[in-house]
């Protein structure tokens, strides 16, 4: 592609990104804002592809636009919709009264100043000569990392510490969600067309998750994208009104949620006992250990994201719950 048409493409892409961000924040209709935000996420995924970041593009499309969108849309659905233009105006006036016009302008001015400072600092950084030491070090050590996809090598080997702590963040978030209350009520059972779609879609999503997990070692993909796919299967089942969405119950659920951090720590500690640095895999074992950690991480991420969509502790649906219900029915 010649440089001029590429520049036109960039300009159009960036204009639509800024336009969608502006539109999703400017509207007072929450649902419209959320749907525009999902479109924003999908256009962002195109931008990541354009900047040669296919791993990030996959994650953005699946998590940033897909699952975040599903979470936000479900939350927007529970909020009362503004009934008429008068109510919209009333909320707008209330908002304007809450935040004075002067303050509004002051905030806008400050944010503009922040953007200007940030841009100035960036242009300054770009104009100085770049010294690419880290990319060189990464490509030099890629052969001993156990995988050939540099992004996976950074995530699971060179900076495995970051990923371990990220999984800890996920665990903390899901514990917070558990502490805040019960899951949202489920949905109505799906009609025949949607139900038929679900029957086809869920196996394909599970298969795609397995493929992404495996392919992450040498091509774009990995535990995050795979976990998001698996979670999407759970969300689709939930939307179709199923009570059993593949989520384990009780102790098993707790084990799955903690599996990512648990397996990671266990491998790190075992390596310490064997006299190696924490998470410093022996090169011969690196590939297998990374796949093991990624499998556990995928399951934890998927369970976390499904629980996030449920919005709380899941209601028991298994044998025990059935037994309890039967006990209650007996007078």
């Amino acid at each position, binding site marked *: 592609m010649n440089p001029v048409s*590429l520049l036109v493409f960039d*300009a159009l892409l*960036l204009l639509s*990104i*800024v336009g969608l*961000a*502006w539109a*999703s*924040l400017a509207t007072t209709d*929450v649902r419209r*804002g959320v749907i525009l*935000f999902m479109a*924003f*996420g999908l256009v*962002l995924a195109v931008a990541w592809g354009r*900047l*040669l*970041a296919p*791993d*990030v593009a996959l*994650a*953005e499309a699946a*998590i940033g636009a897909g*699952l*975040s969108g599903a*979470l*936000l849309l479900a*939350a927007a659905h529970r*909020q009362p919709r503004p009934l008429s233009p008068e109510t919209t105006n009333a909320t707008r006036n209330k*908002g304007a009264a*809450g935040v004075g016009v002067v303050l509004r302008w002051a*905030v806008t001015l400050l*944010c503009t100043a*922040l*953007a*200007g400072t*940030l*841009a100035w600092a*960036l*242009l300054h950084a*770009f*104009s100085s000569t770049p010294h690419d030491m880290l*990319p060189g070090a990464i490509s030099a050590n890629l052969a001993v990392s156990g995988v050939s996809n540099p992004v996976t090598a950074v*995530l699971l080997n060179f900076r495995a510490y*970051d*990923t371990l702590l*990220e999984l800890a*963040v*996920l665990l903390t*978030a899901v514990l*917070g*969600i558990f502490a*805040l*209350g019960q899951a949202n009520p489920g949905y109505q059972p799906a009609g025949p067309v949607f139900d038929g779609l679900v029957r086809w879609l869920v196996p394909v999503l599970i298969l795609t998750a397995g493929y992404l997990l495996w392919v992450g070692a040498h091509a774009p993909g*990995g535990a*995050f994208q795979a976990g998001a796919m698996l979670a999407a299967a759970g969300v689709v089942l939930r939307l179709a009104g199923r009570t059993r969405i593949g989520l384990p119950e009780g102790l098993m659920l707790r084990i799955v949620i903690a599996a990512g951090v648990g397996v990671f720590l266990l491998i790190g500690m075992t390596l310490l006992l064997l006299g190696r640095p924490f998470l410093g895999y022996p090169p011969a074992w690196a590939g297998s250990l990374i796949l093991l950690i990624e499998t556990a991480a995928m399951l934890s991420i998927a369970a976390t*994201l499904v629980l*996030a969509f449920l*919005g*709380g502790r899941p209601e028991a649906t298994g044998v025990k719950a059935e037994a309890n219900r039967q006990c209650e029915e007996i007078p």
Partner: protein
Amino acid sequence: MLTTQVLYALTACVLVALGLRGALLHASLLQRIVAINVMGAGVFMLLIAVAYRGPGQSPDPLPHALVLTGIVVAVSATALALALARRLHAERDDG
């Protein structure tokens, strides 16, 4: 200095400012959460623009890995924020 890199980095600055303004000024909690996500998208774009090395050159994988981590952390933070917002609404309705 690459034109593409500069274009995307400047857009990232605009997104950060837009998101911050929305997060500070919106009355609805849900829209504040959306605004914080827009701000996060700006930060991600900044990192990916910094990683870009031009057409045909392989980009720096380190910022890509950071953004991947960031996307997952952002969605879990969003989920926790939404659960908090739901609880807040429930408490307000009861009281």
